[in-house]
Protein backbone atom coordinates (compact mmCIF):
# COMPACT_ATOMS: atom_id res chain seq x y z
CA UNK A 1 0.00 0.00 0.00
CA UNK A 2 1.51 3.38 -0.96
CA UNK A 3 2.15 5.58 2.07
CA UNK A 4 3.26 9.07 2.94
CA UNK A 5 6.47 9.58 4.87
CA UNK A 6 4.39 10.36 7.98
CA UNK A 7 2.39 7.15 7.63
CA UNK A 8 5.60 5.13 7.20
CA UNK A 9 7.10 6.56 10.37
CA UNK A 10 3.93 5.99 12.37
CA UNK A 11 3.47 2.47 11.02
CA UNK A 12 6.92 1.56 12.31
CA UNK A 13 6.10 3.17 15.68
CA UNK A 14 2.89 1.13 15.84
CA UNK A 15 4.70 -2.08 14.87
CA UNK A 16 2.50 -2.44 11.78
CA UNK A 17 3.03 -2.85 8.05
CA UNK A 18 0.88 0.18 7.26
CA UNK A 19 -1.42 2.72 8.90
CA UNK A 20 -4.21 4.86 7.49
CA UNK A 21 -5.21 8.45 8.32
CA UNK A 22 -7.71 8.62 11.15
CA UNK A 23 -6.48 5.39 12.69
CA UNK A 24 -5.60 5.57 16.39
CA UNK A 25 -2.29 3.86 17.05
CA UNK A 26 -0.40 2.97 20.20
CA UNK A 27 2.93 4.45 19.20
CA UNK A 28 6.35 3.61 20.59
CA UNK A 29 8.05 6.93 21.24
CA UNK A 30 11.74 7.38 20.47
CA UNK A 31 12.44 10.68 22.18
CA UNK A 32 10.70 12.94 24.69
CA UNK A 33 11.64 16.59 25.12
CA UNK A 34 11.20 18.30 28.50
CA UNK A 35 11.59 22.01 29.34
CA UNK A 36 11.09 24.15 32.41
CA UNK A 37 7.47 25.32 32.09
CA UNK A 38 5.49 22.19 31.30
CA UNK A 39 7.45 19.52 33.15
CA UNK A 40 6.15 19.76 36.75
CA UNK A 41 2.98 17.75 36.11
CA UNK A 42 4.84 15.28 33.89
CA UNK A 43 7.34 14.58 36.65
CA UNK A 44 4.47 14.25 39.13
CA UNK A 45 2.76 11.61 36.97
CA UNK A 46 5.93 9.49 36.80
CA UNK A 47 6.80 9.93 40.47
CA UNK A 48 3.39 9.72 42.16
CA UNK A 49 1.29 7.63 39.81
CA UNK A 50 3.54 5.09 38.12
CA UNK A 51 6.33 5.13 40.71
CA UNK A 52 8.77 3.56 38.30
CA UNK A 53 11.75 4.67 36.32
CA UNK A 54 11.81 6.12 32.85
CA UNK A 55 10.54 3.63 30.26
CA UNK A 56 13.27 1.45 28.83
CA UNK A 57 14.64 2.61 25.51
CA UNK A 58 13.00 6.05 25.65
CA UNK A 59 15.45 8.89 25.05
CA UNK A 60 14.73 11.96 27.16
CA UNK A 61 16.20 15.34 26.32
CA UNK A 62 15.98 17.98 29.04
CA UNK A 63 16.45 21.47 27.65
CA UNK A 64 15.23 24.25 29.94
CA UNK A 65 14.76 27.46 27.97
CA UNK A 66 11.57 29.40 28.62
CA UNK A 67 12.21 31.40 31.78
CA UNK A 68 15.97 30.79 31.64
CA UNK A 69 18.19 32.42 32.87
CA UNK A 70 15.79 32.30 35.78
CA UNK A 71 13.70 35.46 35.65
CA UNK A 72 12.16 35.30 39.11
CA UNK A 73 11.89 33.05 42.14
CA UNK A 74 9.05 30.94 40.73
CA UNK A 75 10.96 30.21 37.54
CA UNK A 76 14.11 29.47 39.54
CA UNK A 77 12.10 26.81 41.39
CA UNK A 78 10.81 25.33 38.10
CA UNK A 79 14.39 25.09 36.84
CA UNK A 80 15.62 23.55 40.06
CA UNK A 81 12.87 20.91 40.06
CA UNK A 82 13.65 19.95 36.48
CA UNK A 83 17.34 19.62 37.28
CA UNK A 84 16.55 17.61 40.42
CA UNK A 85 14.62 15.25 38.17
CA UNK A 86 17.68 14.94 35.95
CA UNK A 87 19.90 14.25 38.95
CA UNK A 88 17.59 11.41 40.00
CA UNK A 89 17.84 9.79 36.58
CA UNK A 90 21.27 10.77 35.33
CA UNK A 91 22.62 7.23 35.49
CA UNK A 92 20.20 6.33 32.72
CA UNK A 93 22.31 6.45 29.52
CA UNK A 94 19.28 7.61 27.51
CA UNK A 95 18.77 10.86 29.40
CA UNK A 96 20.49 13.99 28.12
CA UNK A 97 20.39 17.37 29.81
CA UNK A 98 21.52 20.81 28.72
CA UNK A 99 21.51 22.90 31.88
CA UNK A 100 22.22 26.62 31.89
CA UNK A 101 25.92 26.77 31.10
CA UNK A 102 28.29 26.35 28.21
CA UNK A 103 25.94 24.31 26.04
CA UNK A 104 22.30 25.21 26.55
CA UNK A 105 19.63 26.98 24.55
CA UNK A 106 16.15 27.03 23.09
CA UNK A 107 14.98 23.41 23.05
CA UNK A 108 13.83 23.21 19.42
CA UNK A 109 17.20 24.40 18.21
CA UNK A 110 19.12 22.31 20.75
CA UNK A 111 17.65 18.96 19.67
CA UNK A 112 18.70 19.25 16.01
CA UNK A 113 21.98 20.97 16.93
CA UNK A 114 22.94 18.14 19.29
CA UNK A 115 21.90 15.37 16.90
CA UNK A 116 18.80 14.23 18.79
CA UNK A 117 16.41 14.45 15.81
CA UNK A 118 16.92 11.85 13.09
CA UNK A 119 14.85 10.91 10.06
CA UNK A 120 12.14 8.42 11.01
CA UNK A 121 12.25 9.23 14.74
CA UNK A 122 9.02 9.80 16.67
CA UNK A 123 9.69 12.75 18.94
CA UNK A 124 7.19 14.25 21.38
CA UNK A 125 7.48 17.16 23.75
CA UNK A 126 5.24 19.18 26.02
CA UNK A 127 5.68 22.19 23.80
CA UNK A 128 3.62 23.01 20.73
CA UNK A 129 6.63 23.82 18.55
CA UNK A 130 7.97 20.29 18.93
CA UNK A 131 6.78 19.95 15.32
CA UNK A 132 10.11 21.58 14.31
CA UNK A 133 11.99 18.28 13.91
CA UNK A 134 10.04 17.40 10.77
CA UNK A 135 12.75 19.47 9.06
CA UNK A 136 15.06 16.48 9.67
CA UNK A 137 12.50 13.93 8.49
CA UNK A 138 11.27 13.02 11.98
CA UNK A 139 7.63 12.79 13.02
CA UNK A 140 7.34 15.23 15.88
CA UNK A 141 4.49 16.94 17.63
CA UNK A 142 3.48 18.74 20.81
CA UNK A 143 1.64 17.10 23.68
CA UNK A 144 0.49 18.07 27.18
CA UNK A 145 2.17 17.57 30.54
CA UNK A 146 0.03 14.61 31.65
CA UNK A 147 0.79 12.97 28.33
CA UNK A 148 4.50 13.65 28.75
CA UNK A 149 4.35 11.96 32.17
CA UNK A 150 2.72 8.92 30.61
CA UNK A 151 5.35 8.81 27.88
CA UNK A 152 8.07 8.94 30.55
CA UNK A 153 6.47 6.01 32.35
CA UNK A 154 5.41 3.82 29.44
CA UNK A 155 7.41 4.99 26.42
CA UNK A 156 4.19 4.98 24.42
CA UNK A 157 1.29 7.24 23.53
CA UNK A 158 -1.90 6.99 21.49
CA UNK A 159 -1.71 9.04 18.33
CA UNK A 160 -4.20 9.64 15.57
CA UNK A 161 -2.56 9.11 12.19
CA UNK A 162 -2.91 12.48 10.45
CA UNK A 163 -4.02 13.06 6.91
CA UNK A 164 -1.23 14.69 4.91
CA UNK A 165 -1.37 18.00 3.11
CA UNK A 166 1.13 18.21 0.28
CA UNK A 167 2.66 21.63 -0.27
CA UNK A 168 4.70 21.79 -3.46
CA UNK A 169 7.01 24.76 -3.89
CA UNK A 170 8.60 25.28 -7.26
CA UNK A 171 10.97 28.04 -8.34
CA UNK A 172 13.55 30.00 -6.39
CA UNK A 173 13.04 32.19 -3.36
CA UNK A 174 13.97 35.78 -4.24
CA UNK A 175 16.98 37.15 -2.36
CA UNK A 176 14.83 39.23 0.00
CA UNK A 177 12.44 36.39 0.82
CA UNK A 178 13.03 33.68 3.43
CA UNK A 179 11.32 30.47 4.52
CA UNK A 180 9.41 32.59 7.04
CA UNK A 181 7.73 34.52 4.22
CA UNK A 182 6.89 31.22 2.53
CA UNK A 183 5.15 29.92 5.63
CA UNK A 184 3.28 33.20 6.15
CA UNK A 185 2.09 33.02 2.53
CA UNK A 186 0.70 29.52 3.07
CA UNK A 187 -0.93 30.17 6.46
CA UNK A 188 -2.38 33.42 5.11
CA UNK A 189 -4.08 31.39 2.38
CA UNK A 190 -5.20 28.31 4.32
CA UNK A 191 -5.88 30.04 7.70
CA UNK A 192 -4.82 29.13 11.23
CA UNK A 193 -6.89 25.96 11.15
CA UNK A 194 -6.31 25.18 7.49
CA UNK A 195 -4.23 22.10 8.28
CA UNK A 196 -6.04 21.11 11.50
CA UNK A 197 -4.94 17.63 12.65
CA UNK A 198 -2.91 17.18 9.44
CA UNK A 199 0.74 16.65 8.54
CA UNK A 200 2.06 19.47 6.34
CA UNK A 201 4.46 17.79 3.92
CA UNK A 202 6.71 20.26 2.09
CA UNK A 203 8.17 19.26 -1.22
CA UNK A 204 9.39 20.68 -4.53
CA UNK A 205 12.68 22.08 -5.79
CA UNK A 206 12.48 25.26 -3.70
CA UNK A 207 12.26 23.13 -0.54
CA UNK A 208 15.16 20.94 -1.71
CA UNK A 209 17.29 24.07 -2.01
CA UNK A 210 16.48 25.25 1.51
CA UNK A 211 19.08 24.75 4.22
CA UNK A 212 18.13 22.63 7.22
CA UNK A 213 17.76 25.75 9.36
CA UNK A 214 15.37 27.31 6.84
CA UNK A 215 13.38 24.06 6.68
CA UNK A 216 13.13 24.26 10.45
CA UNK A 217 11.32 27.59 10.12
CA UNK A 218 8.48 26.09 8.07
CA UNK A 219 8.12 22.92 10.12
CA UNK A 220 8.33 24.90 13.38
CA UNK A 221 5.30 26.95 12.35
CA UNK A 222 3.14 23.98 11.25
CA UNK A 223 1.18 24.36 14.50
CA UNK A 224 0.24 27.91 13.44
CA UNK A 225 -1.85 26.36 10.67
CA UNK A 226 -3.36 23.92 13.17
CA UNK A 227 -1.22 21.05 11.88
CA UNK A 228 -0.12 18.13 13.97
CA UNK A 229 3.26 18.05 12.28
CA UNK A 230 5.31 19.46 9.46
CA UNK A 231 7.78 17.38 7.52
CA UNK A 232 10.39 17.57 4.77
CA UNK A 233 11.71 14.30 3.39
CA UNK A 234 15.40 13.97 4.29
CA UNK A 235 18.06 14.27 1.56
CA UNK A 236 21.78 14.99 1.14
CA UNK A 237 21.35 18.31 2.91
CA UNK A 238 19.89 16.45 5.92
CA UNK A 239 22.69 13.91 5.85
CA UNK A 240 25.37 16.60 5.75
CA UNK A 241 23.71 18.55 8.57
CA UNK A 242 23.34 15.50 10.79
CA UNK A 243 26.55 13.58 10.15
CA UNK A 244 28.83 15.62 12.41
CA UNK A 245 26.12 15.93 15.08
CA UNK A 246 24.82 12.43 15.69
CA UNK A 247 26.62 10.06 18.05
CA UNK A 248 29.00 7.56 16.45
CA UNK A 249 26.68 4.64 17.10
CA UNK A 250 23.89 6.18 15.02
CA UNK A 251 26.02 7.35 12.10
CA UNK A 252 26.06 3.97 10.38
CA UNK A 253 22.34 4.04 9.65
CA UNK A 254 22.22 7.68 8.68
CA UNK A 255 22.56 7.21 4.95
CA UNK A 256 19.72 4.69 4.90
CA UNK A 257 17.58 6.87 7.17
CA UNK A 258 17.98 9.76 4.74
CA UNK A 259 16.30 7.68 2.00
CA UNK A 260 12.98 7.91 3.80
CA UNK A 261 10.30 9.49 1.61
CA UNK A 262 6.65 9.29 0.57
CA UNK A 263 5.65 6.80 -2.08
CA UNK A 264 4.88 8.52 -5.40
CA UNK A 265 1.23 7.42 -5.37
CA UNK A 266 0.56 8.04 -1.66
CA UNK A 267 -2.78 9.59 -0.74
CA UNK A 268 -3.06 13.22 0.34
CA UNK A 269 -6.05 15.00 1.86
CA UNK A 270 -5.17 17.95 -0.32
CA UNK A 271 -2.32 19.35 -2.38
CA UNK A 272 -1.41 22.97 -2.95
CA UNK A 273 1.44 24.52 -4.86
CA UNK A 274 3.28 27.80 -5.09
CA UNK A 275 6.06 29.26 -7.14
CA UNK A 276 8.65 30.62 -4.73
CA UNK A 277 9.77 33.16 -7.32
CA UNK A 278 6.41 34.98 -6.94
CA UNK A 279 6.86 35.64 -3.22
CA UNK A 280 7.50 39.02 -1.61
CA UNK A 281 8.38 39.90 2.01
CA UNK A 282 5.26 39.34 4.10
CA UNK A 283 4.09 40.36 7.56
CA UNK A 284 1.43 38.81 9.80
CA UNK A 285 -0.52 41.57 11.51
CA UNK A 286 -2.05 41.22 14.97
CA UNK A 287 -3.52 38.99 16.28
CA UNK A 288 -3.25 35.86 14.14
CA UNK A 289 -0.34 34.45 12.11
CA UNK A 290 -2.76 34.16 9.17
CA UNK A 291 -3.51 37.90 9.06
CA UNK A 292 -0.90 38.38 6.35
CA UNK A 293 -0.11 41.37 4.12
CA UNK A 294 2.88 42.32 1.97
CA UNK A 295 5.33 44.31 4.11
CA UNK A 296 5.19 47.12 1.56
CA UNK A 297 1.54 47.79 2.42
CA UNK A 298 2.35 48.36 6.09
CA UNK A 299 5.02 51.05 5.75
CA UNK A 300 3.06 53.45 7.96
CA UNK A 301 3.16 51.16 11.00
CA UNK A 302 5.63 52.64 13.49
CA UNK A 303 7.49 50.18 15.70
CA UNK A 304 8.87 50.41 19.22
CA UNK A 305 10.76 47.14 19.18
CA UNK A 306 12.28 44.66 16.78
CA UNK A 307 13.00 41.15 18.04
CA UNK A 308 15.28 38.47 16.60
CA UNK A 309 15.34 35.24 18.59
CA UNK A 310 13.35 32.18 19.61
CA UNK A 311 12.80 28.78 18.02
CA UNK A 312 11.48 30.15 14.71
CA UNK A 313 13.97 32.90 13.93
CA UNK A 314 16.89 32.64 16.33
CA UNK A 315 19.09 30.27 14.33
CA UNK A 316 22.56 31.15 13.04
CA UNK A 317 21.35 31.80 9.48
CA UNK A 318 18.63 34.10 10.79
CA UNK A 319 21.30 36.26 12.43
CA UNK A 320 23.59 36.10 9.41
CA UNK A 321 20.69 37.22 7.17
CA UNK A 322 19.57 40.07 9.41
CA UNK A 323 23.18 41.21 9.77
CA UNK A 324 23.49 41.66 6.00
CA UNK A 325 20.78 44.32 6.24
CA UNK A 326 22.06 45.90 9.45
CA UNK A 327 25.71 46.10 8.41
CA UNK A 328 26.85 49.70 8.52
CA UNK A 329 23.40 50.91 9.64
CA UNK A 330 22.01 52.09 12.94
CA UNK A 331 18.78 51.07 14.59
CA UNK A 332 16.27 53.95 14.33
CA UNK A 333 16.15 56.36 17.24
CA UNK A 334 13.59 55.26 19.81
CA UNK A 335 13.52 51.67 18.53
CA UNK A 336 14.84 48.75 20.58
CA UNK A 337 16.42 45.92 18.59
CA UNK A 338 16.65 42.84 20.83
CA UNK A 339 18.85 40.00 19.63
CA UNK A 340 18.67 36.63 21.37
CA UNK A 341 20.90 33.88 19.97
CA UNK A 342 18.99 30.63 20.48
CA UNK A 343 21.87 28.59 21.78
CA UNK A 344 25.29 29.13 23.32
CA UNK A 345 26.91 27.52 20.26
CA UNK A 346 25.17 30.04 18.01
CA UNK A 347 26.19 32.85 20.37
CA UNK A 348 29.80 31.68 20.26
CA UNK A 349 29.76 31.48 16.46
CA UNK A 350 28.33 34.99 16.27
CA UNK A 351 31.07 36.19 18.57
CA UNK A 352 33.82 34.43 16.60
CA UNK A 353 32.59 35.72 13.23
CA UNK A 354 32.16 39.29 14.38
CA UNK A 355 28.37 39.25 14.22
CA UNK A 356 27.93 40.19 17.86
CA UNK A 357 30.10 43.26 17.25
CA UNK A 358 28.08 44.12 14.17
CA UNK A 359 24.83 43.92 16.12
CA UNK A 360 26.24 45.96 19.00
CA UNK A 361 27.52 48.57 16.55
CA UNK A 362 24.04 48.87 15.08
CA UNK A 363 22.65 49.66 18.52
CA UNK A 364 21.12 46.25 19.22
CA UNK A 365 20.92 44.71 22.69
CA UNK A 366 22.19 41.11 22.78
CA UNK A 367 20.81 38.75 25.43
CA UNK A 368 21.65 35.24 26.62
CA UNK A 369 19.78 32.33 24.96
CA UNK A 370 16.15 32.05 26.12
CA UNK A 371 12.60 31.86 24.79
CA UNK A 372 12.42 35.25 26.45
CA UNK A 373 9.93 37.74 25.10
CA UNK A 374 8.51 35.49 22.37
CA UNK A 375 5.87 34.40 24.87
CA UNK A 376 5.92 37.57 26.96
CA UNK A 377 8.22 36.00 29.51
CA UNK A 378 11.12 38.39 29.92
CA UNK A 379 13.92 40.14 28.02
CA UNK A 380 11.83 42.48 25.92
CA UNK A 381 8.22 42.42 27.20
CA UNK A 382 5.92 45.06 25.68
CA UNK A 383 4.09 47.93 27.43
CA UNK A 384 0.48 48.90 26.60
CA UNK A 385 0.22 50.36 23.10
CA UNK A 386 3.71 49.27 22.05
CA UNK A 387 4.35 47.68 18.67
CA UNK A 388 6.93 44.98 18.00
CA UNK A 389 8.01 43.38 14.74
CA UNK A 390 9.35 39.94 15.49
CA UNK A 391 10.82 36.87 13.82
CA UNK A 392 8.84 34.66 16.22
CA UNK A 393 5.81 32.48 15.52
CA UNK A 394 2.77 33.96 17.30
CA UNK A 395 1.13 37.35 17.47
CA UNK A 396 -1.89 36.53 19.61
CA UNK A 397 -3.30 39.24 21.84
CA UNK A 398 -0.89 39.77 24.74
CA UNK A 399 1.62 37.27 23.35
CA UNK A 400 4.71 39.40 23.97
CA UNK A 401 3.44 41.41 26.91
CA UNK A 402 0.55 43.71 27.73
CA UNK A 403 -2.75 42.68 26.09
CA UNK A 404 -2.89 46.12 24.46
CA UNK A 405 0.49 45.69 22.75
CA UNK A 406 0.78 44.44 19.17
CA UNK A 407 3.05 41.98 17.44
CA UNK A 408 3.79 41.77 13.72
CA UNK A 409 5.54 38.63 12.47
CA UNK A 410 8.13 38.74 9.69
CA UNK A 411 11.40 37.28 8.43
CA UNK A 412 14.74 38.23 10.01
CA UNK A 413 15.51 40.29 6.88
CA UNK A 414 12.30 42.30 7.18
CA UNK A 415 12.69 42.71 10.95
CA UNK A 416 16.20 44.10 10.43
CA UNK A 417 15.05 46.45 7.66
CA UNK A 418 12.25 47.69 9.94
CA UNK A 419 14.62 48.22 12.86
CA UNK A 420 16.64 50.63 10.72
CA UNK A 421 13.70 52.73 9.47
CA UNK A 422 11.55 52.52 12.61
CA UNK A 423 8.57 51.53 10.46
CA UNK A 424 7.54 48.19 8.99
CA UNK A 425 9.79 47.84 5.98
CA UNK A 426 10.10 44.85 3.68
CA UNK A 427 13.59 43.54 3.07
CA UNK A 428 15.02 45.37 0.04
CA UNK A 429 15.30 43.48 -3.27
Amino acid at each position, binding site marked *: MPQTITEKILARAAGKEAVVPGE*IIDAKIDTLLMHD*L*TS*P*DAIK*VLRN*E*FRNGIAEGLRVVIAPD*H*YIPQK*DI*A*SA*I*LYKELMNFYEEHKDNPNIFAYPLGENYGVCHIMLPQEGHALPGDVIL*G*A*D*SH*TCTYGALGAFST*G*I*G*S*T*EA*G*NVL*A*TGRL*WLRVPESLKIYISGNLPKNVMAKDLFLKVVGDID*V*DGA*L*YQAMEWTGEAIRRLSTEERMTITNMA*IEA*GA*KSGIVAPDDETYNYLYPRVPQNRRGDLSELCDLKSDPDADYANAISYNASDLVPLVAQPS*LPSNVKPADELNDVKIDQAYIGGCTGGKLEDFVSAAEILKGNKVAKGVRLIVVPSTQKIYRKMLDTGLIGLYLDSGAVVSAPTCGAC*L*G*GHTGVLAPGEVCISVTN*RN*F*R*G*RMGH*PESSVYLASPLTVAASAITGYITGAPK
Partner: protein
Amino acid sequence: MKQEIPLKISGKVYVMGNNIDTDLIIPARYMTTMDPETLKLHAMEDLDPKQYPIPFLNPDKTCDYRIIVAGRNFGCGSSREHAPIALHTAGIQAVVAASFARIYYRNSVNGGRLILPLESDMDLTKNVATGDVLEIIVNEQRIFNPQKSLEYGFKPFGPVKGILEAGGLTEYNKQMLGLK
Protein backbone atom coordinates in the same frame (compact mmCIF):
# COMPACT_ATOMS: atom_id res chain seq x y z
CA MET B 1 -9.54 6.56 40.27
CA LYS B 2 -12.42 5.81 37.95
CA GLN B 3 -14.70 8.72 37.29
CA GLU B 4 -18.15 8.83 35.81
CA ILE B 5 -18.68 11.00 32.78
CA PRO B 6 -21.66 13.06 33.97
CA LEU B 7 -24.92 12.22 32.20
CA LYS B 8 -26.02 15.80 32.21
CA ILE B 9 -24.25 19.15 32.41
CA SER B 10 -26.33 22.28 32.73
CA GLY B 11 -25.44 25.82 33.50
CA LYS B 12 -24.73 29.26 32.17
CA VAL B 13 -22.72 29.57 28.99
CA TYR B 14 -19.94 31.96 28.05
CA VAL B 15 -19.88 32.54 24.30
CA MET B 16 -16.61 33.12 22.44
CA GLY B 17 -15.47 33.42 18.83
CA ASN B 18 -13.11 31.47 16.57
CA ASN B 19 -9.44 30.70 17.28
CA ILE B 20 -9.51 31.22 21.05
CA ASP B 21 -5.82 30.75 21.76
CA THR B 22 -4.14 29.42 24.88
CA ASP B 23 -2.46 32.79 25.53
CA LEU B 24 -5.98 34.16 26.05
CA ILE B 25 -7.09 31.19 28.15
CA ILE B 26 -4.08 31.50 30.44
CA PRO B 27 -1.33 34.03 29.67
CA ALA B 28 2.22 32.63 29.71
CA ARG B 29 3.24 35.05 32.45
CA TYR B 30 1.31 32.87 34.91
CA MET B 31 2.99 29.67 33.78
CA THR B 32 5.52 29.72 36.56
CA THR B 33 3.19 27.30 38.35
CA MET B 34 0.87 24.42 37.50
CA ASP B 35 -1.13 24.91 40.71
CA PRO B 36 -4.81 24.81 39.66
CA GLU B 37 -6.00 27.25 42.34
CA THR B 38 -3.46 29.86 41.21
CA LEU B 39 -4.08 29.35 37.50
CA LYS B 40 -7.87 29.72 37.79
CA LEU B 41 -7.48 33.28 39.11
CA HIS B 42 -6.16 34.33 35.69
CA ALA B 43 -8.40 32.36 33.33
CA MET B 44 -9.29 34.47 30.26
CA GLU B 45 -7.68 37.48 31.91
CA ASP B 46 -6.51 39.13 28.69
CA LEU B 47 -9.81 39.03 26.78
CA ASP B 48 -10.43 42.25 24.87
CA PRO B 49 -13.21 44.02 26.82
CA LYS B 50 -14.40 45.62 23.57
CA GLN B 51 -15.09 42.18 22.17
CA TYR B 52 -16.08 40.57 25.48
CA PRO B 53 -17.85 43.27 27.53
CA ILE B 54 -18.96 40.68 30.10
CA PRO B 55 -15.85 39.42 31.91
CA PHE B 56 -15.31 35.68 32.26
CA LEU B 57 -14.46 35.97 35.96
CA ASN B 58 -16.29 38.08 38.54
CA PRO B 59 -14.26 40.71 40.43
CA ASP B 60 -13.87 38.20 43.29
CA LYS B 61 -12.43 35.69 40.74
CA THR B 62 -15.42 33.36 40.89
CA CYS B 63 -16.92 32.21 37.60
CA ASP B 64 -20.66 32.00 36.90
CA TYR B 65 -20.27 29.84 33.80
CA ARG B 66 -20.25 26.06 33.50
CA ILE B 67 -20.08 25.79 29.71
CA ILE B 68 -18.06 27.64 27.05
CA VAL B 69 -19.53 27.84 23.56
CA ALA B 70 -16.99 28.74 20.88
CA GLY B 71 -16.44 28.69 17.14
CA ARG B 72 -13.60 27.03 15.25
CA ASN B 73 -10.16 25.98 16.50
CA PHE B 74 -10.73 26.45 20.24
CA GLY B 75 -7.49 26.23 22.23
CA CYS B 76 -5.06 26.91 19.40
CA GLY B 77 -1.46 27.78 20.15
CA SER B 78 0.63 26.48 22.99
CA SER B 79 0.64 22.94 24.40
CA ARG B 80 0.08 24.28 27.90
CA GLU B 81 -2.12 21.96 29.93
CA HIS B 82 -2.42 24.99 32.18
CA ALA B 83 -5.29 26.01 29.83
CA PRO B 84 -7.79 23.23 30.58
CA ILE B 85 -6.55 23.22 34.21
CA ALA B 86 -7.39 26.93 34.61
CA LEU B 87 -10.81 26.60 32.94
CA HIS B 88 -11.75 23.44 34.82
CA THR B 89 -10.74 24.85 38.18
CA ALA B 90 -12.72 28.02 37.43
CA GLY B 91 -15.79 25.77 37.08
CA ILE B 92 -16.09 24.97 33.38
CA GLN B 93 -17.36 21.44 32.79
CA ALA B 94 -17.67 21.42 29.01
CA VAL B 95 -16.46 23.38 26.01
CA VAL B 96 -18.77 23.14 23.00
CA ALA B 97 -16.89 24.24 19.88
CA ALA B 98 -17.19 23.85 16.13
CA SER B 99 -13.65 22.44 16.20
CA PHE B 100 -10.72 22.12 18.58
CA ALA B 101 -7.00 22.63 18.25
CA ARG B 102 -5.51 19.18 18.66
CA ILE B 103 -3.27 19.63 21.70
CA TYR B 104 -6.03 21.38 23.65
CA TYR B 105 -8.38 18.52 22.77
CA ARG B 106 -5.86 15.90 23.84
CA ASN B 107 -5.15 17.72 27.09
CA SER B 108 -8.86 17.86 27.96
CA VAL B 109 -9.25 14.14 27.31
CA ASN B 110 -5.96 12.82 28.65
CA GLY B 111 -5.68 15.18 31.62
CA GLY B 112 -8.61 13.45 33.30
CA ARG B 113 -10.24 16.60 34.61
CA LEU B 114 -13.72 16.31 33.14
CA ILE B 115 -13.72 19.44 31.11
CA LEU B 116 -15.38 17.73 28.18
CA PRO B 117 -14.44 18.88 24.67
CA LEU B 118 -17.67 18.58 22.66
CA GLU B 119 -17.42 19.09 18.93
CA SER B 120 -20.81 20.48 17.92
CA ASP B 121 -22.51 19.59 14.65
CA MET B 122 -22.90 23.28 13.87
CA ASP B 123 -21.41 26.57 15.08
CA LEU B 124 -23.58 27.45 18.09
CA THR B 125 -22.09 30.88 18.73
CA LYS B 126 -24.93 32.63 16.89
CA ASN B 127 -27.60 30.59 18.66
CA VAL B 128 -26.75 31.33 22.26
CA ALA B 129 -25.65 34.38 24.20
CA THR B 130 -23.40 34.69 27.22
CA GLY B 131 -25.55 34.09 30.30
CA ASP B 132 -28.01 31.73 28.57
CA VAL B 133 -28.44 28.33 30.09
CA LEU B 134 -27.73 25.14 28.15
CA GLU B 135 -28.44 21.57 29.12
CA ILE B 136 -26.10 18.95 27.72
CA ILE B 137 -27.32 15.37 27.81
CA VAL B 138 -23.91 13.83 27.43
CA ASN B 139 -24.70 10.18 26.74
CA GLU B 140 -27.30 11.11 24.10
CA GLN B 141 -25.04 13.70 22.41
CA ARG B 142 -27.77 16.31 22.74
CA ILE B 143 -27.53 19.97 23.72
CA PHE B 144 -30.83 21.58 24.69
CA ASN B 145 -31.33 25.34 24.50
CA PRO B 146 -34.36 26.10 26.73
CA GLN B 147 -34.40 29.78 25.70
CA LYS B 148 -35.26 28.82 22.15
CA SER B 149 -36.55 25.29 22.69
CA LEU B 150 -33.93 24.15 20.18
CA GLU B 151 -31.70 21.14 20.23
CA TYR B 152 -28.25 20.61 18.79
CA GLY B 153 -25.99 17.61 18.47
CA PHE B 154 -22.34 16.93 19.02
CA LYS B 155 -19.99 14.28 17.71
CA PRO B 156 -19.48 11.09 19.71
CA PHE B 157 -16.21 10.74 21.62
CA GLY B 158 -15.21 7.75 19.52
CA PRO B 159 -12.01 5.96 20.50
CA VAL B 160 -11.13 8.37 23.33
CA LYS B 161 -14.27 7.48 25.30
CA GLY B 162 -12.43 4.77 27.20
CA ILE B 163 -9.82 7.28 28.36
CA LEU B 164 -12.50 9.72 29.53
CA GLU B 165 -14.29 6.94 31.38
CA ALA B 166 -11.09 5.76 33.02
CA GLY B 167 -10.51 9.27 34.36
CA GLY B 168 -7.74 10.34 32.01
CA LEU B 169 -4.70 8.82 30.37
CA THR B 170 -2.80 8.17 33.58
CA GLU B 171 -5.63 6.11 35.07
CA TYR B 172 -6.22 4.42 31.74
CA ASN B 173 -2.58 3.37 31.43
CA LYS B 174 -2.44 2.25 35.06
CA GLN B 175 -5.48 0.03 34.46
CA MET B 176 -3.85 -1.41 31.35
CA LEU B 177 -0.66 -2.13 33.29
CA GLY B 178 -2.59 -3.55 36.23
CA LEU B 179 -1.28 -0.86 38.61
CA LYS B 180 -3.48 0.39 41.42
